[in-house]
């Protein structure tokens, strides 16, 4: 475990950035998660703060320094040339990476770790490839497609960064082709066709990684100190004909082995976009050696085969479930209301299931007694009892000047009568000082992990970093 506590996630609005931030929110020891991107997040986030930045991330250094970021996770690499134009991809992949690394370097930078999401497109697909690329191998030929060139360039700038910043641990994760129900890649597009197009006379080897494993792999790199390059690809290399079999679809060798480029440009006219890097993969395929990351303690949830089966199941079910889930849309005003408004009692429990007004008052009184009694007993400066009115919202920047210091709590009958859900629903309206008292009390007595976790997360959300003691979590 490392001390990654203040994390910056680039590419928050990309699929991976959003999911990673969401996954990291679970860990109370992580104090701050800041996501930057030039578009709005696409997943619902609880305590991640979104900062809108330009495409080139030019002002990132100020964010990094102001928030004392110790870990930067760069998830914004474009590895699929169908998603954007090649000049935009270059801008994002090469220039963007350069600027992000520039923001993390320097003699007094707080950044201690950089995690970079890369792709096995780094290795390319050629005739004279080894059957399994390992991390020490470089590609046998110069990159042929723009996207591969970008990835090689981006990784080269990470290499330079690692050399000039020996104090920072640089982790590069090279992901194989990602499949999953929620992610849209050009390969998912290919596999959703009624038949799998192939190049006549070729049956390339493919290795996949499940979308959940991608998020877990990034999370693993954030939570452990793993400098170096790692391939992330699930166990098992499948032949494309095998993939078609698992999907329950016929394969159609419609692409000619010679003049494949012309054929794909014709296919593009009819709406099927086979990007150049995919053409190479459809011809030669690629397998990578995934053992190094496994040796670093990572465990895959799915094999390549299971990944394809999961996709197949989703594809069969998808037409029936269309329109079931509303996509999440980020609205700044709503997000800020949910985070900072005094009227929001808890982000976790829906309105109405909390306590009645009387119970609320009772808890307040109990807490007042608690802090008051203690203060007099220990003959310390009297701690201010909480307001009977709803407390002002805990703002991240202006801290409350006189928050009572943490101390062990005394048993309070009223408090013990409350259910854990009831306590949790109250936490949002309490001050950080009270919360700390409550946490210590809870830990010494009932020790309900749900309550402790909730208190910690509220404390972390309020920006009161000092409130989260390292050992304070169960």
């Amino acid at each position, binding site marked *: 475990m490392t001390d990654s506590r203040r994390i910056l996630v680039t590419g928050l609005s990309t699929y991976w950035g959003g999911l990673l931030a969401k996954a990291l929110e679970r860990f109370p020891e992580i104090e701050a998660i800041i996501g930057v991107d030039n578009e709005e997040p696409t997943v619902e986030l609880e305590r991640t703060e979104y900062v809108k930045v330009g495409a080139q991330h030019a002002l990132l250094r100020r964010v990094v320094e102001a928030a004392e970021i110790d870990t930067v996770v760069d998830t914004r690499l474009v590895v699929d040339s169908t998603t954007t134009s090649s000049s935009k991809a270059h801008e994002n992949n090469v220039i963007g990476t350069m600027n992000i690394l520039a923001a993390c370097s320097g003699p007094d930078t707080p950044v201690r770790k950089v995690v970079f999401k890369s792709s096995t497109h780094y290795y390319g697909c050629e005739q004279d490839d080894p059957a*399994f690329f390992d991390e020490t191998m*470089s590609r046998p030929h110069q990159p042929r497609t723009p996207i591969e060139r970008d990835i090689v360039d*981006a990784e080269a700038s990470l*290499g330079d960064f*690692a050399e000039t910043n020996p104090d920072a641990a640089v982790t590069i994760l090279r992901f194989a082709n990602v499949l999953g129900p929620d992610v849209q890649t050009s390969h998912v597009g290919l596999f959703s066709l009624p038949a799998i197009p192939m190049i006549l*006379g070729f049956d390339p080897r493919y290795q996949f990684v499940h979308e959940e494993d991608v998020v877990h792999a990034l999370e693993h790199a954030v939570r452990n100190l793993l*400098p170096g390059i790692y391939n992330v690809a699930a166990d098992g290399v499948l032949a494309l004909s095998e993939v078609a079999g698992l999907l329950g679809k016929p394969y159609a060798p419609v692409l000619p082995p010679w003049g494949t480029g012309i054929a794909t440009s014709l296919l593009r006219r009819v709406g099927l976009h086979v990007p150049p890097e995919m053409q190479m993969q459809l011809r030669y395929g690629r397998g990578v050696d995934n*053992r190094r990351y496994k040796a*670093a303690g990572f465990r895959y949830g799915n094999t390549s085969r299971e990944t394809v089966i999961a996709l197949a199941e989703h594809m069969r079910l998808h037409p029936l479930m269309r329109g079931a889930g509303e996509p999440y849309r980020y609205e700044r005003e709503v997000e800020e209301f949910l985070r900072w408004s005094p009227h929001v009692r808890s982000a976790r429990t829906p309105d109405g299931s909390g306590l009645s007004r009387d119970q609320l008052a009772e808890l307040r009184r109990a807490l007042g007694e608690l802090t008051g009694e203690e203060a007099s007993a220990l003959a310390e400066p009297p701690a201010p009892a909480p307001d009977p009115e709803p407390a002002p919202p805990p703002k991240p920047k202006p801290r409350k000047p006189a928050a009572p210091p943490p101390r062990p709590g005394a048993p309070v009958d009223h408090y013990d009568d409350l259910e854990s859900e009831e306590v949790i629903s109250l936490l949002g309206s309490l001050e950080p000082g009270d919360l700390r008292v409550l946490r210590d009390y809870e830990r010494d007595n009932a020790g309900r992990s749900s309550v402790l976790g909730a208190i910690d997360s509220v404390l972390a959300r309020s920006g009161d970093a000092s409130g989260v003691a390292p050992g304070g979590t169960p």
Partner: protein
Amino acid sequence: MADGQRTPLSIREGKPALGAGAPLPALRREELREHLPGVEPERQLTDWGRSERIEGLMDQTLVEFFYRYWFRAEVEGIENVPANGGGLLVSNHSGALPPDAAMIAKAVKEEHSHPRPVNITVEHFFKGYPGFSMLIPKIGCVAAHPANVQRLLFDEEQLVLVFPEGRKGTEKLYKDRYRLRRFGRGGFVEAAMRAKAPIVPICVVGAEEAAPVFAQMNLMKRLTGLLYFPITPTFPHLGLLGMLGYLPAKFKVRFLEPIRFEEEGMYEDKALVQTVANEVRARIQENLWDMVSRRKSVWFG
């Protein structure tokens, strides 16, 4: 788990300009072996693309016919093939579409007390040629890349068959039969030393006469994009199937005493690697002359 230990950036192989150089933690290869992916019994292919079904089908029909009835293969010294662990089989090579590889693999399967699959290394060319690219991996062939040989020998502890002569052996003409070509750059010895796997030299007699090459057509080779375009008794006038039109020469396969490498780091000594490569070549050549000189008839042995 990571221990923060870091090796210098120079660990990367190949051209440094292309390699991104974040430092790699030093990991001994033995530790990685236990992380090899497990076998999924539902699958019909291995990770190398080998298909037991297609290989078995070929084995029971075409290979069986040639091995038993057409070439009437005779095997000696099969006990020299290790029953477990990695092993590097090194053989002479000949014939337009060389039948020797399939016969050696079949010999191990038929005659050995512990029949094991043999991975046959082939030129990278096959991966790039339509049709071959699909079929060749299915029947147990892998590209002759040092990393592939290393993984098979050391990590997966399998048998690997290499032809160090490469295409120099198969494109040689009938008049040069049984005269070994240069043995590459000794890469096969290095691979065996790295994996500490024994080298088993193999002599095959009969393949030269089964598929004699009378001439090479360079123009046709360029037009078809094939590795080479030979003139044999049945090719090209009988079409692609003519490639399988072998003459019924008697096959004799002799497995020689294995050469073992026990010491650590022997592969770093380039001179030693070359010496061993030459030694292997000399042994095969010597035994080939011996076998040819004892042979009374090309067709009946």
